[in-house]
């Protein structure tokens, strides 16, 4: 029921009656919920009026699926017409649709400024961050789907478990224990050149867009994937970790499902919302792995 955006006018009358009849007998929380529901309906009608009045709207086609609700077990697209505002992002439009039309519309979001990496969606056939994508840059209708190649939990929410496992597999933390400077407050410095080298790789926000766009990762579940390899690059190239640790990291990367699976399609580099040159980093690690193993005598 609540997943429907536009309700035919006949049902409006009957549901108004139920609100009135339940007001006397029903418990307080239900009253409150019923009031809220009536409120939302009123707002929805107002928006509909605005649409009639010729306000510019955005046509959203949003993927809906929920294995726990009988009507949503068959995946489908719901249409939402959201009033357009200057500077509106895909995430803004989704939030509006959820708050004003359908509270059951489910998606992850947090910071709304491309830092938390929780709102990567498949928008108009491409992996993008909802909060970073301007509606005005897209051709309508805007089609929003969950990330491909990941299990859909509900609506736009995908299971990120496998992605996080791959990220953790490359030991994404600083491990140097020798050569640490003496004294509690002593800092361990990195040269400016070295910082510049790893700068782009540190930008990763774990949104999973690259992994979703990579069709090698789609076919090979054990492949580490662009994000994890980039994370490994960030530490392998850091001068503050010694040679031994770098070798340890390369041993993880040069395994069968490590860097060699990359076939330089550049899909990850194209979709990365933080513009990390992922393919370049993977290629550099391939060369490092070759250098380590090449022996001429």
């Amino acid at each position, binding site marked *: 029921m609540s997943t429907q955006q536009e309700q035919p006018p006949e049902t409006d009358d009957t549901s108004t009656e139920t609100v009135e009849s339940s007001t006397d007998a029903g418990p307080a929380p239900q009253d409150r919920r019923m009031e809220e529901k009536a409120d939302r309906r009123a707002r929805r009608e107002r928006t509909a009026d605005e649409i009639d009045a010729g306000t510019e709207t955005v046509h959203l086609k949003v993927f809906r699926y929920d294995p726990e609700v009988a009507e949503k077990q068959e995946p489908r697209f719901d249409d939402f017409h959201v009033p357009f505002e200057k500077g509106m992002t895909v995430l803004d439009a989704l939030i509006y649709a959820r708050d004003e039309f359908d509270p059951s519309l489910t998606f992850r979001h947090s910071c709304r400024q491309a830092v938390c990496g929780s709102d990567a969606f498949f928008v108009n056939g491409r992996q993008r961050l909802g909060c970073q994508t301007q509606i005005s840059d897209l051709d309508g209708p805007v089609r929003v*789907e969950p990330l491909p190649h990941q*299990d859909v939990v509900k609506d736009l929410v995908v299971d990120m478990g496998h992605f996080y496992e791959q990220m953790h597999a490359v030991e994404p933390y600083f491990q140097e224990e020798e050569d640490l400077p003496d004294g509690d407050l002593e800092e361990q410095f990195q040269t400016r050149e070295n910082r510049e080298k790893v700068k782009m790789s540190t930008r990763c926000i774990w949104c999973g867009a690259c992994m979703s766009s990579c069709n090698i990762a789609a076919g090979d579940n054990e492949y580490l994937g662009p994000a994890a390899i980039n994370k490994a690059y960030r530490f392998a190239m850091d001068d503050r970790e010694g040679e031994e640790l770098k070798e340890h990291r390369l041993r993880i990367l040069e395994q069968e499902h490590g860097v060699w699976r990359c076939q330089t399609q*550049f899909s990850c580099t194209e979709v990365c919302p933080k513009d990390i040159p992922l393919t370049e980093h993977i290629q550099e690690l391939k060369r490092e792995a070759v250098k380590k193993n090449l022996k001429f005598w």
Partner: protein
Amino acid sequence: MSDSYNRGLIEDFGRWREFAPGMWAWILHKFTGWILIGYLFTHIAVLSTALGAAGNTAAIEAGDDVYTTTLQGLEGLFLVRILEVGLLAVAVFHILNGVRLLMIDLGIGLESQDKSFYVSLVVTAAITVASVPTFMTGVGV
């Protein structure tokens, strides 16, 4: 990953809408590679069936040995001439994109990987067009 839940046609066709150059290059490289392998085996098959000419000097001089007649017969077909032009296009693209991939492996010009793909397409087209007069001479049309 996506085993437990199949998004059906949405999944299959949604991904085809916006292919980036790098992806097209990958697909074409695989495609042309398979065609070249297929050609290699056809080539071996044709040559090995024509081996009966070996040692038969009189027939070779007369020009009616198995090898000569087989090849002349094939070259006389319009379809074979067309396929030869196609084979050249496939081979040239595979070579040029192979060089492009070599550059990518060496870490040279990764920012212009899309441009190098377009260049290899254009050069392939130019060579193919230029080869048409040579390949299509004397065909019985």
